């Protein structure tokens, strides 16, 4: 062995001395690039940690497998970026045409991190490990600069406080939706592109990848059918639940903000709902049990009242109202949760009662305001008069 190594050394020395050397092993490169402080002419670090590289998924590769332009030593400063598509052709093809295609930064390393220490995505240390994805995307999509530059909302804070974000960051659920679950990873398209997973029509299918049962219900309901029929005014999942700031729907925060969401389309129904006790209670917070739209109408499989399966079908009302109002009977469910006291034709009894009450209020107050104002004036006059004649005693 001693002999062999001596030969090798001698050969190496010979080659080194003879001509520009051919760098063959990573150790040759690391002889220089292993120096942690090594920088190129413009001050960027060009050092590589050999141990980390060996441990990375790229460890078995030779430096010049990727840095193909470098064939000898000494070598000129490398200007062209490494082409990952040499090996990762599918991913690179996906990137073409995506929103990230014309990024100034390296399209691969800006998400995957330094190629010299890259680990498989199943490794918790990977930048694209499911639990790390939001933080990785958030490097750009969590900043105001990005938001301004591209007109995109700073979505990371919204996501991380959402039910998905909590499941991921607090519970560490690998199945919790992270950015790429909905948006994809390489071929990310704008939500305005009909081929995008986040294009309005495609949203139910995208969410349905996990929420299959809900999606099935939704497709049966009026909203799902309308969207399927190309009526894009109807809501998809994200219109009611939001795209990123998704809340747990049974909790107070979502319950209190849910009615205006429905009301943004169903304006008349919303306004009549607001006149009722249900809304008055519900608006004040701290009490979330009062009926919201979907407590009576259903949330996903919303059916018209004429449908016998609908919870607001006449035959089902006692049961539907009875969920909150124990003891509800046929007479009780005659209550109109959207009664309009201003509509004489639809609700004559209510209209006339309201009218009577208003007339009573206005006439009593008008009479007494005039009565009392006149009284005030007269009494003050008398008081001043008396004061001047009797020395200010009001008796």
């Amino acid at each position, binding site marked *: 062995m001693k002999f062999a190594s001596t030969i090798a050394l001698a050969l190496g020395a010979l080659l080194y001395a003879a001509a520009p050397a051919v760098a063959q092993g990573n150790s040759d490169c690391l002889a220089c690039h292993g120096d942690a402080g090594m920088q190129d002419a413009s001050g960027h670090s060009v050092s590589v940690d050999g141990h980390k590289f060996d441990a990375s998924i790229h460890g078995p590769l030779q430096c010049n497998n990727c840095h193909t332009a470098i064939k000898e030593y000494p070598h000129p400063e490398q200007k062209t970026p490494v082409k990952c598509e040499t090996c990762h052709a599918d991913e690179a093809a996906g990137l073409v045409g995506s929103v990230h295609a014309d990024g100034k930064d390296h399209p691969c390393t800006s998400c995957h991190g330094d190629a010299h220490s890259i680990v498989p995505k199943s490794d918790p240390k990977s930048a694209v490990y499911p639990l790390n994805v939001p933080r990785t995307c958030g490097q750009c999509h969590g900043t105001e600069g990005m938001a301004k530059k591209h007109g995109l909302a700073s979505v990371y804070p919204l996501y991380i406080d959402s039910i998905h974000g909590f499941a991921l960051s607090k519970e560490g659920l690998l199945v919790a939706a992270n950015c790429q679950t909905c948006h994809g990873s390489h071929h990310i398209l704008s939500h305005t592109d009909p081929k995008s997973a986040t294009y309005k029509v495609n949203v139910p299918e995208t969410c349905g990848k996990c929420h299959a049962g809900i999606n099935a219900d939704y497709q049966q309901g009026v909203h799902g059918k309308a969207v399927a029929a190309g009526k894009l005014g109807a809501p998809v999942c994200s219109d009611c639940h939001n795209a990123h700031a998704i809340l747990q729907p049974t909790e107070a925060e979502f319950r209190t903000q849910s009615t205006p969401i429905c009301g943004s389309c169903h304006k008349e129904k919303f306004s009549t709902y607001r006149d009722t006790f249900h809304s008055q209670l519900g608006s004040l917070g701290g009490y979330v049990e009062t009926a919201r739209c979907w407590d009576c109408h259903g949330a996903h499989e919303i059916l018209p009242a004429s449908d016998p399966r609908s919870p607001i079908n006449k035959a089902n009302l006692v049961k539907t109202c009875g969920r909150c109002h124990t003891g509800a009977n046929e007479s009780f469910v005659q209550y109109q949760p959207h009664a309009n006291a201003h509509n004489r034709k639809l609700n004559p009894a209510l209209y006339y009662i309201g009218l009577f*009450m208003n007339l009573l*209020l206005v006439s009593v107050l008008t009479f007494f305001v005039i009565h009392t104002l006149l009284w005030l004036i007269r009494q003050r006059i008398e008081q001043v008069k008396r004061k001047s004649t009797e020395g200010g005693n009001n008796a």
Partner: protein
Amino acid sequence: MPDPEQTVLAGGTNGAGKGAVQERFFTRFTAAQRYMHGVLFSSFLGLAATGLPMRFSQSFWARKFASAVGGFGAIIFFHKLCALVLTVAFLIHLKNIFTRGIVNREKGIFWGPNSMVANWKDVKDLIGHMRWFVGLGKRPTFGRYAYWEKFDYWAVFWGMLIIGFSGYAMWFAPFFARFLPGWALNAVLVVHSEEGLLAILFIFSIHFVNTHLRPDTFPMDMVIFTGVESEAEFKHKRPEEFDKLVKEGKLESRLGLAPATWWINFARVIGFTAILIGLTLLVLTLSAYFS
């Protein structure tokens, strides 16, 4: 600004005015009646303060107030609590009327100059009073209860029946639905909130001014707290009742004790607090109503 003489008349204890040292005081309200008024206005303030945020649930102050006191759950709890207190007070009052008027056959409960029931004189007083306002005649001489006081009483009486019934109908809706038609459940909210609004606007503007804030009594008529009023005040405000008592020789039987200073001061704090809360609620109501 109240002049000092008036304060003497209203309070009547510090004896600073001319001839006030020997002032006699006459009883107008019994302790039970004064406590009834106390329970009435405290529960009414509570009902108004918790009812208004529900009526105007979309206004900024309703939500702020609600979240400050613990949300809707707390609001409805206090609303129901005050409603129960007021209901009990109302039932006690009915029982008193029943005992005095029907069981004991006390005279003058349902008719006569001391009754709360309106009579022809009240109509004449109303017209005469209004003629006096515009300078067309002399000020009428009022008896024990003037027409506006009777109106206050009956407004509250019917108001409690109507608001109380509609309130309980909402509280126990499934029970009431056994004998009320479905649309009535819609109607009770309209009735409850409109009648409640009327009561609030009326009490916090008309009653406050008629009874407390007008020049004769400004800033507060203390008789509902002390139960007594000075002879001068009695004569000036209710000459008819006074003359009648003198004529029947019963004036002495109504003699009362001058109220203690501490009690007057205490009552003032309570009374002004009530008026202040009322006026605040009035401003909030009007701001919500017209926005």
